[in-house]
């Protein structure tokens, strides 16, 4: 499933150098990081903007570099898919992958001297010189597309973790420029990755390590669109697993003894953003009672056996009577 996304609003202002302010044009009393954050997230009030340079008479000369950097978060609902209400990174659908993205900052005005420059930054290293300062209101004035032509595409995790920045380099003492509506827009798709689960989905398994009689669980990449198991975290709700082997093509583990008698349990895979983000179930295994015991009593009409956990915690589990059968004698000619 493909679509478009937008990351907005920005969550934090983490750095400013030079002269910046957020607030009403002509007033410029708001200069904390929080004020700058409020300003960059505006786009409906043309009088509430992010400004840089010699904003007030008392400000120092604007000549030189001015930098502000902003961050996103993985837990705040700031990602809107296809115009729907925003969700967090952790709530992205399984198999989510960014296919294109562009950092966009709006211009609300600028008065600069020839030779002054404006850069957008995608991270602390990569910045793009903008063609020119835009003199008036333009919601799409400044853009910096992310590079998807290299061997490794940026992921949503990369985009959110790196944040973005605006750097102005003024040549005139009185240069000023005003911005707002910083956001990232782009396209996405969702992908399915292939793998196998052994024992297969729905199987009965025992918890515990090998010494405890537990079953070794193996997840393997499968041909087609192989799941890269070196970039996932495997977990179960009932306790921490014991990893035996983890490579790009194989993941072997034991279920913790804590899971004894847990019944149907999802084997969850959480992506680190390389192939996918978020969590998805790879299958469900039925965790039996290990070393179960019971006192056998004949109960009229009872069609199953009830096992009691040897841990004496009151846990019971109904299991089938082991394949009741009848046999005739041998019949011959």
């Amino acid at each position, binding site marked *: 499933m493909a679509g478009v996304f937008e990351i907005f609003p920005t969550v934090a202002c983490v750095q400013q150098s030079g002269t910046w302010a957020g607030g009403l044009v002509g007033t410029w009393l708001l200069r904390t990081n929080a004020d700058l954050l409020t300003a960059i997230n505006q786009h409906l009030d043309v009088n509430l903007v992010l400004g840089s340079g010699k904003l007030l008479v008392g400000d120092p000369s604007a000549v030189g570099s001015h930098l502000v950097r902003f961050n996103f978060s993985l837990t705040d609902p700031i990602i809107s898919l296809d115009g729907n209400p925003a969700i967090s990174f952790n709530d992205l659908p399984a198999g989510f992958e960014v296919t294109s993205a562009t950092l966009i900052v709006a211009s609300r005005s600028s008065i600069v001297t020839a030779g002054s420059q404006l850069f957008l930054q995608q991270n602390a290293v990569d910045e793009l010189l903008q063609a020119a300062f835009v003199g008036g209101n333009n919601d799409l004035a400044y853009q910096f597309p992310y590079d998807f032509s290299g061997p490794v595409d940026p992921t949503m995790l990369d985009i959110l973790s790196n944040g973005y920045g605006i750097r102005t380099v003024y040549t005139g003492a009185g240069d000023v420029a005003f911005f707002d509506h910083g956001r990232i827009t782009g396209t996405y798709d969702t992908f399915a990755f292939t793998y196998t689960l052994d024992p297969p989905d729905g199987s009965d398994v025992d918890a515990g390590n090998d010494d405890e009689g537990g079953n070794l669980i193996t997840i393997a990449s499968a041909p087609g669109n192989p799941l890269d198991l070196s970039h996932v975290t495997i977990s179960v709700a009932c306790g921490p697993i014991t990893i035996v082997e983890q490579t790009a093509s194989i993941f072997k583990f034991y279920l913790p003894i804590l899971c004894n008698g847990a019944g149907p349990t999802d084997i969850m895979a959480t992506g680190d953003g390389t192939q996918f983000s978020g969590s998805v179930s790879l299958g469900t295994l039925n965790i039996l009672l290990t070393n179960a015991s019971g006192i056998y009593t004949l109960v009229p009409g009872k069609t199953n056996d009830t096992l009691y956990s040897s841990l004496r915690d009151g846990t019971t589990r109904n299991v089938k009577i082991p394949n009741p059968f009848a*046999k005739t*004698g041998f*019949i*011959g*000619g």
Partner: protein
Amino acid sequence: MLRLDLLVAKNSLTGELVHFGVTRMRVTGSGVLRSFLHSLDDASNQATLPTITMQANTNREPTILSNFIDQYGQLEVKTTAIDEVFEISKIVIFVRPVSSGYPQ
């Protein structure tokens, strides 16, 4: 719960090869009854017969076909899932001699 009412086996010592073609049972219960034919010691011959989906009340004795040839055969019936039960009150196995014995 397992319950056995009967099962009468007819043994013979002539050793002729016999074709087991039809098995008919009076069976009630719930779940799926799985049937098998075994040779002596399961040495070289075993047949898996079609299953019977059991009902608690029925007026029918289902017939299942087989194609099993040996000197002796043993019918096994069982269930494999939780809460499946069966109650058999009659088994009829139709056989026909096909040869006098195995070659020397």
